[in-house]
């Protein structure tokens, strides 16, 4: 649950790089220019050169052996800098799904994804909330029909990994398959969603899209067996990103309290503010401990990280949400201006809440896994 020397080096490399190359201002630029793909390709290519796309791959596929604790450190920095990249969608979920399925796509597709020449987006959500068990998109007689929404990195993806029902009369997460659909396939319509945080999501329509068996990734009708553990890992990675954002907010807020003066003293000397900051710090470290526990559980090869993933997501949601509200409040009038970055973190936190399952979803899952 502590970074080793190589992981610490990776962490500081990524931090220095993002500080230099992509501070929060880079997100503002994407937002203000309404960048059509939702991320900066040059930045992504430079990150790939630093190795971020190979961190958690098996060594046979060119993995770098930094483990999930190492990946968590990268995600933390992405969270601190609000960096818009295909990291979560294309690598942490996409590449991991291809690798776990272990079929011809490992040679046909994976190298391009890792090199960044193709970008994947996992198309899962259909309704207002993440709920894979309610998947209605279906493949029948070789034709894919359905609508996906809130697809992370959808506008910038070259290919979609679509979760769809393939077994007739199946329910819940049974009978699903994972289907690779190129963005330019006939019948695919991609609509960009401009989300509140300046990141990019898509609503995608699949209308009678022709699919052959070669496009099915892994075992037909049994996709969930492969997808579920990958999503648990991705949820932990997302929680690490969220706590990176929360930690950045705490540091920025403390700096402000140590600088701003009212009534002739630093406002950080007021006990009303000190106690709230101390409580936020406690909450942050508690949540961080669950994230580390989960990431190191993956590294130690523990199979069942589902409970830890839900646990981490819930605490990360509570922490980031509270931290961002308090950061706005403690920055006073400046906190509600667009000029100061705090509001960008506030918005990002709410978007992260919805990705891969909200608090209700994960609390329910945690309770079920604990048997009550």
């Amino acid at each position: 649950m502590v970074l080793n020397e190589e992981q610490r080096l990776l962490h500081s490399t990524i931090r220095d790089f993002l500080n230099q190359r992509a501070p929060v201002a880079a997100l503002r630029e994407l937002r203000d220019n309404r960048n059509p793909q939702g991320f900066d390709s040059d930045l992504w290519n430079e990150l790939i050169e630093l190795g971020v796309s190979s961190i958690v791959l098996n060594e046979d596929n060119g993995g770098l052996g930094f483990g999930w604790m190492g990946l968590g450190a990268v995600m933390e920095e992405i969270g601190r800098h609000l960096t818009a990249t295909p990291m979560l969608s294309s690598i942490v979920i996409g590449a991991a799904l291809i690798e776990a399925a272990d079929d011809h796509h490992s040679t046909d597709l994976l190298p391009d994804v890792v090199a960044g020449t193709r970008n994947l987006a996992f198309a899962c959500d259909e309704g207002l909330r993440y709920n894979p068990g309610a998947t209605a998109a279906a493949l029948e007689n070789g034709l894919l029909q359905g609508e996906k929404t809130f697809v992370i990195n959808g506008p910038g993806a070259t290919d979609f990994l679509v979760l769809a029902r393939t077994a007739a009369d199946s329910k819940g997460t049974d009978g699903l398959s994972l289907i690779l659909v190129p963005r330019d396939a006939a019948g695919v319509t991609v609509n960009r969603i401009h989300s509140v945080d300046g990141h990019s999501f898509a609503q995608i329509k699949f209308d009678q899209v022709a699919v052959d068996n070669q496009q099915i990734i892994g075992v037909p009708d049994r996709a969930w067996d492969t997808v579920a553990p990958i999503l648990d890992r991705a949820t932990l990675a997302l929680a690490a990103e969220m706590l990176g954002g929360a930690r950045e907010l705490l540091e920025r807020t403390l700096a402000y309290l140590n600088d701003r003066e009212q009534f002739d003293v630093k406002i950080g000397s007021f006990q009303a503010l000190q106690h709230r900051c101390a409580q936020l710090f406690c909450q942050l470290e508690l949540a961080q401990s669950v994230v580390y526990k989960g990431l190191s559980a993956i590294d130690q090869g523990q199979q069942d990280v589902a409970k830890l993933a839900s646990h981490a997501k819930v605490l990360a949601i509570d922490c980031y949400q509270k931290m961002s509200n308090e950061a706005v409040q403690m920055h006073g009038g400046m906190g509600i201006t667009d000029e100061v970055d705090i509001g960008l973190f506030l918005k990002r936190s709410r978007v992260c809440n919805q990705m891969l399952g909200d608090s209700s979803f994960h609390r329910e899952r945690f309770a079920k896994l604990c048997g009550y």
Partner: protein
Amino acid sequence: MSPIDEFRQQARAWLEENCPASQRRPVVKDEQIWAGRDRVFATPDAKLWFERMRDKGWTAPTWPTEYGGGGLSSEEEKVLEKEMARLNCRPALYDLGLWMLGPALLVHGNEAQKQEHLSKIVRGDIRWAQGYSEPAAGSDLASLKTRAVDMGDHFLVNGTKIWTTQADKADWIFALVRTDASGTKHQGISFILIDMRSAGVSTTPIELISGESEFCQTFFDDVKVPRENIVGGLDNGWTVAKELLKHERKLMATMESIVQREDESLVELAAEYIGMDESGKLNDSNIRSRITDQLMTAEALEYLNERLFFQYRSKQVDSGLPLTIKYLGTNAIQQKDELLLEILGNHGLSWQEQSHTPREHNIVQNWAYNKAHTIAGGTSEIQLNIIAKRALGLPA
């Protein structure tokens, strides 16, 4: 096999051989083995278990063997703790001298003091009480007024201490007294050891909201204390006190694991008193949701402790992290107590043991008693002050 694995194997074998079966169940209050000249054992097994642990030096595993301790490294101590937890072994000795005074004496005591007191603590021969707080000196401890006047070969002590844990049963007390009133309030305090049998010492128990009387007020009227009983030098008591407070805060936080062992599983209790529907969900969705809150906090605390352990082991300690434990741990205990009480419904209102089951009565008593946790050993508010200043660097 590495030396530590070898130790683990030896410790495991020794515990299995030497810990009586009756001492491998969660301990109840009446069966705790408290130190003291007049110590009593609830059962012959308790006596046997205590004596074996004492003779092994494992009542104080890391203290040097020359003072009767076990001479273990902190890594070996962790292993021993784990092995004891695995077998559910009860603690072999309860004493504030063991938990607080001893560690401070090892740092600040002179050789004569260590010789005189440490082995008696290890052997459970003396029960210690703590004399810190006074009626007018709580969180602002340094404003204490109990005086010790220098009379040459001895000090004359006058004043009163409050919240002295079971002082009516204690043999000795370690106390903070004012030896010089001329400087700032943190200066001029000395740390002194007083034999409770000295003339002029008296105690009065304080009845608590739980109905128990664990704490006393202790009075000192012209009590003569030998000069050599000052620890860490005259007027240097605040330094010694800070060392001890560290151990008290750690102690309060580890109370959680002690409490955890003797108390209830929320889920099991709720299943019994509230029931579940056919899909295996608790019938009360509000309680169910709050159990999730509590479990998530309690388990996260375990991970935080584990993380700290790894940080110590790899010598990369975030210095702010240990400061969070007492605040978080004591809040978590109380959060759980409130839920336990609510789950019992009107059975959670027992005042007399006869009118309810012992289990129900115990939950109610603990709920009331555990309100002490966020007050004793530095209130939660003081903890937050410390975190704000030391961990977050906010101005005074």
